């Protein structure tokens, strides 16, 4: 696998100096993301997932170990990365189109002004925002803003797309909509993705590999490969196969949290039964 890996994270450990003393966040974390792959990372809150994204994007350097992209050690920010966060962070004083084009003002793309605009318009129509190009972010719904944020992350054709809980603040239906949009975008754009999420259904729906991080300090505790023909339609999320995968992941999360299953069991829906009643929709976990 490592031969074709685009992102390689090798024995990374990181400790923050905080007011209350050193805080070790990552401990000997290793994982690979194959080129063109889609890896979801799940783990307990505060275990270091966002820190991991900052290491991959070069916003931070690990104290120990190394991060390689295309065989090259990441030493600082690189323009071949696109990022989207839970907060869409659109600029209120720019139109949606101008927001999407922002990275092209920084990265040398070799595109003419007209081509840049065409590229932005293409992405916006791909995510279903055609006709909203001239609107201000405040005129859009939360889901639409998140779509625009996704376009901005992709406009400069990054090889690596980093998504840190981009759908975390959306309601369940909007979120499912965006999952499907994500598949559509992935079919058109050749990026390699790392998705941080708290939603296990989201992880198996979008990713072809799910990595469960342990509690802090985090290491890769469990890796689940989602078969190609995995739950790529919403209906498939309710098959016995999907339920099985979700049950495994949920169990791994419980181990990562190190909690007695009896205590907080009511806080999460119980693992879906193998054959759910027709029309049943499990509530996705919405932990901030």
């Amino acid at each position, binding site marked *: 696998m490592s031969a074709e890996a685009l992102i390689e994270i090798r024995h990374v450990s990181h400790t923050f100096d905080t007011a209350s003393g050193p805080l070790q966040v990552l401990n000997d974390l290793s994982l690979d993301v194959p080129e063109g792959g889609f890896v979801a990372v799940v783990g307990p809150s505060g275990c270091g997932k966002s820190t991991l994204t900052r290491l991959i994007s070069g916003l931070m350097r690990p104290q120990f170990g190394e991060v390689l992209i295309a065989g090259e050690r990441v030493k600082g*920010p690189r*323009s071949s990365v696109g990022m989207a966060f839970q907060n869409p*962070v659109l600029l*209120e004083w720019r139109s949606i189109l101008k927001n999407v084009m922002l990275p092209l003002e*920084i*990265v040398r793309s070799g595109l003419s002004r007209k081509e840049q605009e065409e590229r932005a318009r293409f992405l916006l129509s791909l995510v279903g925002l055609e006709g909203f190009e001239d609107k201000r972010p405040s005129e859009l719904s939360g889901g639409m803003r998140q779509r625009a944020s996704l376009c901005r992350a992709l406009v400069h054709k990054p090889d690596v797309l980093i998504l840190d809980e981009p759908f975390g603040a959306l309601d369940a239906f909007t979120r499912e909509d965006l999952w499907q949009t994500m598949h559509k975008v992935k079919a058109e754009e050749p990026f390699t993705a790392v998705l941080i999420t708290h939603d296990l259904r989201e992880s198996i729906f979008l990713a072809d590999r799910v990595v469960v991080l342990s509690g802090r300090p985090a290491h890769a505790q469990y890796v689940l490969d989602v078969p190609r023909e995995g739950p790529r339609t919403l209906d498939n999320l309710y098959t016995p196969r999907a339920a099985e995968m979700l049950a495994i992941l949920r169990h791994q999360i419980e181990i990562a949290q190190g909690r007695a299953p009896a205590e907080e069991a009511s806080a999460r829906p119980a693992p879906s039964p193998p054959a759910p009643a027709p029309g049943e929709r499990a509530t996705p976990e919405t932990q901030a």
Partner: protein
Amino acid sequence: MTARRIAVPVLAVIVFLALWELLVWANGWPTYKMAAPSDLGPAFAKYFDLFLIYGWQTLWRTVAGLALAVVFGVAVGMVMGFSRTMRDALYPLLVGFNAVPKATVVPIVALMFVGWHDFNTVLIAFMISFFPIAVSVSIGLSTLEPEYRDILRSLGASQSTIFWKIALPKTLPEFFGALKVAVTLAFIGTNLMEIVSPHGRGLGALFDSGKTNSDYPLMFAVLIALAVLGIVLYYMVVILEKTFAGWAERPAG
């Protein structure tokens, strides 16, 4: 719609003047107790040239002081907004400086730079008005959500690119909020100095000469002229705000 937006405030002013006239007339107050609006017309007419010349002086000194306050305040705000250490170092100094009542500083500056009418007036207008600007810019910059920086930083953008493209425009609404406070303060500063400074100029000096000559209608006329100038200055800032930070205004309803 626009007709209404002009008519309503104009009507309000007329009602206000009428009530004022009525109050003075009903109480039979002499002009030295309180001049009525009808006494003001002759005062304006008599000193019309002086009003124009002095009004202009007050105006440009206020604007000059304010412009200095903007330049200096934004610079200090930037330093404090970007560096924690500088913020910790400068904050107590600024607060202490701002806490000193400017009425006590005015006579000191007046003596220090006696005869330099323009200079000492602009200086006071500046000193009294830069504080809210510095604080608002520093708060605006330091509370910028880290994701905004990260979006550009992850692409390799420099600090100054991040400042011009994101931090500065994002701070503009707070900046204009502070500028509205600052413009009023600068105006007060200018007038304080003009009144206190011996042989001063500007509307403040005109007020002072009204006082010396017991020309009470003149004093009241100056007050009205000051109010008008104050309104003009304030709405100049409002227009600037609409132009540069109009996006921050949420569509109503």
